[in-house]
């Protein structure tokens, strides 16, 4: 693909065009310069593929549903509460939990890039990083919800949180009816990733 002048001057244009080869070339160069340990890359990938993901957030939500004192503390100072569970870290240094009710449904986006609470939800899904989600959800959240098969009652207001700073937002979805008496592990299974971003609802028992 031909480049315009400005693009051609960009250093990245000196790399191979194929992205897989770009990664290899950059990793090779940075390794030779002593800036990268390839084993550290393996460790980072393993962390986000196998250790840190949306089950962390699901535990927080299930506990908030079943423990009123925990819920109150979470809404007051989410950063401290999730840190106590071992879920503090990169891209989750400043946490706020927002609770869905009959009157308000919360959704989270980063219109300017892709900010997301990694320690609680892992790597953001493809759609969260897509132009369509970033462009549309602030202007037409209900149409975006429809893309996920979610329809809200007219009396429920939508509040969309645009993550323009380093604050990271976790949605506490509404606890489904018919879950009285379920233990934390059973509740966790109802907490989907999308319900903690606000594009979904918690599952039904």
């Amino acid at each position: 693909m031909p480049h315009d002048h400005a693009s051609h001057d960009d250093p990245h244009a000196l790399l191979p065009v194929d992205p897989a080869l770009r990664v290899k070339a950059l990793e090779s160069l940075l390794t030779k310069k002593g800036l990268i340990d390839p084993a550290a890359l393996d460790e980072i990938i393993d962390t986000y593929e196998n250790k840190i993901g949306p089950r962390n957030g699901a535990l927080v939500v299930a506990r908030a549903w079943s423990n009123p004192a925990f819920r109150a503390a979470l809404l007051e100072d989410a950063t401290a509460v999730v840190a106590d569970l071992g879920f503090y870290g990169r891209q989750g240094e400043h946490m706020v939990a927002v609770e869905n009710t009959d009157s308000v449904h919360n959704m989270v986006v980063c219109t300017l890039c892709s900010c997301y609470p990694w320690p609680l939800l892992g790597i953001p899904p493809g759609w969260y990083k897509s132009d369509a989600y970033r462009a549309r959800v602030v202007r037409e959240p209900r149409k975006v919800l429809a893309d996920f098969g979610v329809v809200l009652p007219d009396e429920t207001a939508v509040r969309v949180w645009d993550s323009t700073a380093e604050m990271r937002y976790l949605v506490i979805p509404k606890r489904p009816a018919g879950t009285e008496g379920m233990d934390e592990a059973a509740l966790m299974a109802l907490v989907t990733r999308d319900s903690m971003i606000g594009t979904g609802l918690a599952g039904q028992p």
Partner: protein
Amino acid sequence: MSRLHDMGGRFGDGPVEPEAEGVIFHADWHPRAMALTVATGAVGAFNIDMSRHARECLSPKDYMRFSYYEKWLGGLANILVQTGVITRDELAGLTDPAPSPLAERRLSADRVAGVLAKGGPVERPSDVAPAFVAGDVVVARKFAQNAQVSGGHTRLPSYAAGARGRILRLHGAHVFPDSNAHGGGEAPEPLYAVGFAASALWAHPEHPQDEVVVDMWQSYLERGE
């Protein structure tokens, strides 16, 4: 609008396509691109605001044709050259790579867990006293542009520029990206969650009760009526 990344409210994009929770990456090279970016960032040659600005400064043509992690790679290559960590000739493979003086800060595999768990908090003590309290009416700055650097980094989205909202909460004093992305220091100042009625942002809001909350630094805001 300052640059293409500032796309909130734009018309013309298609449907959002949900995907299963187990899908983390979409190509074999994606996890490597993610990890390479995280590990290089840990060396500390540039901060996160500089890193975001480097992606935003990709030419409009590149920004639109690149997939997500291609933007990361493009931004990473550019900022490494701009900060002098690597040279253009090294990037082009025209010369043997010279050992970097930053190599002593290399993220080794045994430090990964600790560094990821430590993160990079940005709340700071600040001399700037909060000017607003929850409930105050405010107006966002007219221009979604960096006030000091033409074409510089800002986190004020254009759809909220000039709009009237109300303070929901004070988050504390945070590093100011508009300064920190350009060598101006961290310049921490109060950061607020500001609520805007959908009708204050859009000519055709979906629902009269809907709103958008934007995190805004104090210097993005003026007192409203």
